[in-house]
């Protein structure tokens, strides 16, 4: 298979299984969304693939097992954009984005001309070129999210993991970030895996979805199938109203408890339909 293949991946911390024998596929050229309630193990799954937490199970990229976690070889294949955007020193955006080239640098070697070009390209792609000399702590939330995205784009890894890349962003920035990820999937045939809480956004930008509950993958498939299934209400413990607005899927939680049938299925509410 061309892409990332995760087979029975488990993460244990003490007696707790944060991820329990999760298996999934994320293909090249596609955005794979990981959804599920808080504590389902979505972020832990991403951190395990990134090699940041110890795990068991096998990971293959294009059929080849991934190198051991925590090494530079793994870092050259997997780019990871964590949820928190902490920067401990007020470095400039350009310096921060340059850190994305670290896995590719030999010891004692400084950035080559090619590295600098990649950094500038990543800045341009995320519309951050104008911010290149600004200190990261002075940026607004949206600017910071773009700068962080530029940092992970500069790794040029075939796999890109992003944990809630659109959280706390205004609609325009959400669209901007997701558009960049879409382009990475389409034009560079990267494997993109994103954790998302906004199910409508997930329905719109993800090709495939993986639904997690209590550390397990309980459903995987095309976005509309996963979101249309009845176990979505059970997993989240809330009823959803599904529909289409201007031909775009919308999934929103409703306040009332699920009625007899327990939800599921899509109701078309196209503009002008009523």
């Amino acid at each position, binding site marked *: 298979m061309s892409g990332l293949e995760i087979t029975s991946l488990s993460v244990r911390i003490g007696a707790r299984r944060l991820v329990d024998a999760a298996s999934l596929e994320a293909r090249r050229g596609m955005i794979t969304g990981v959804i599920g309630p808080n504590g389902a193990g979505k972020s832990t799954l991403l951190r395990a693939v990134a090699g940041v937490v110890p795990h068991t199970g096998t990971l293959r990229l294009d059929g080849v097992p991934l190198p051991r976690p925590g*090494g530079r070889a793994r*870092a*050259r294949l997997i780019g990871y954009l964590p949820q928190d955007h902490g920067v*401990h020193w007020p470095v400039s955006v350009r310096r921060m984005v340059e*850190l994305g080239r670290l896995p590719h640098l030999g010891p*004692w070697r400084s950035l080559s001309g090619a590295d600098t070009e990649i950094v500038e390209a990543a800045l341009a792609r995320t519309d951050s070129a104008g911010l290149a000399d600004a200190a990261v702590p002075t940026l607004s939330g949206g600017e910071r999210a773009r700068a962080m995205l530029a940092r992970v784009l500069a790794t040029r890894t075939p796999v890109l993991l992003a944990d809630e890349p659109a959280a706390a962003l205004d609609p325009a920035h959400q669209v901007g970030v997701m558009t960049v990820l879409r382009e990475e999937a389409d034009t560079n045939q990267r494997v993109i895996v994103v954790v998302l809480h906004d199910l409508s956004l997930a329905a719109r930008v993800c090709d495939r979805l993986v639904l997690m509950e209590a550390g397990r993958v309980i459903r995987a498939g095309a976005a509309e199938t996963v979101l249309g299934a009845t176990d979505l209400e059970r997993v989240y413990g809330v009823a959803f109203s599904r529909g289409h607005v201007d031909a775009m899927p919308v999934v929103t939680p409703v306040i009332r408890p699920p009625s007899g049938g327990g939800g599921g299925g899509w109701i078309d509410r196209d503009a002008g339909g009523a």
Partner: protein
Amino acid sequence: MTRPFVVLPLILAGLALAGALSGLMIGYVPYGPGAVVSGLLGIGDPVVTAIVREVRLPRTLLALEVGAALGIAGAALQGLLRNPLAEPGLIGVSSSAALGAVVAFHFGLMAWADWALPATAIAGAAVTTLILLLIGRRLPGTLPLILTGIAVSSLAGALTSLALNLAPNPFALNEMVLWLMGSLKDRSMDHVVLALPFLLVGGGILLAMARGLDALTLGEETAQSLGVHLLRQRVGVVTGIALVVGAAVSVSGAIGFVGLVVPHMLRPFVGHQPSRLLLPSALAGAALVVVADTVARVLPTNQEVMVGVVTALLGAPFFLGLVLRSRRMTP
């Protein structure tokens, strides 16, 4: 883009060199630069040659070594802990080196061999480093490292007080107390040569860790996702600091504030990048200590002022000024 990062070390190296030259010139009998140079080359007046080579040169070289060690160790530790208030003394290496030295005074080991004092001090630093590394292996993270450092520091402090308390005679007590203040008085070329290998190896290790320190700017998890081996990084930085600080404290006693103030002062000039802070901090530390030691020597007091006292007297108000002037760094 890279030019400022070459210019700054050059300027600081020039400052350290000028400081060293003035350290050789200034003294009980002041000499001009010509006399100092001919003294160093051994072609001038034999008295001048003797004073410059035997008295002032070891002291000046030692000041450069100690300052460089404290500067680079402070910069590396601040980078590892991502905290501008970290200071090489924090991980307990300095206080254990001091304890080793006090033990040597207590038992009068110097009567037995000249190098006994620095040797016991280095042994003290080594024991603490081993404890830090063993605990760091079992409990990952920077918090256990700091807590272990604090525990070891207090233990070493208590044992040092005990040694002072039970001092065999008033002279030993006097020697211990003065030594603890940090001084470069009456040091020989032996001290310079003894400290040098530790400084070179430790400094080399710290420079090799520079890139990992940069990655840590983004936090431990992101650094790891960029291929930084966290345990190896921590072990490398702790070992490097232990080598350079252990050696520095062994030959000079505890000289405070250099490791804290110097990296803090230079950080804005290197774009706050931890890797680019290491070398300039070493050079600026060397310049600062050599100047402070010259000041300590020429102050007209009936007993020579200890260089550790001078750095603290200069450093503390300066640091306070920096704190008051600095705006808040993070939102």
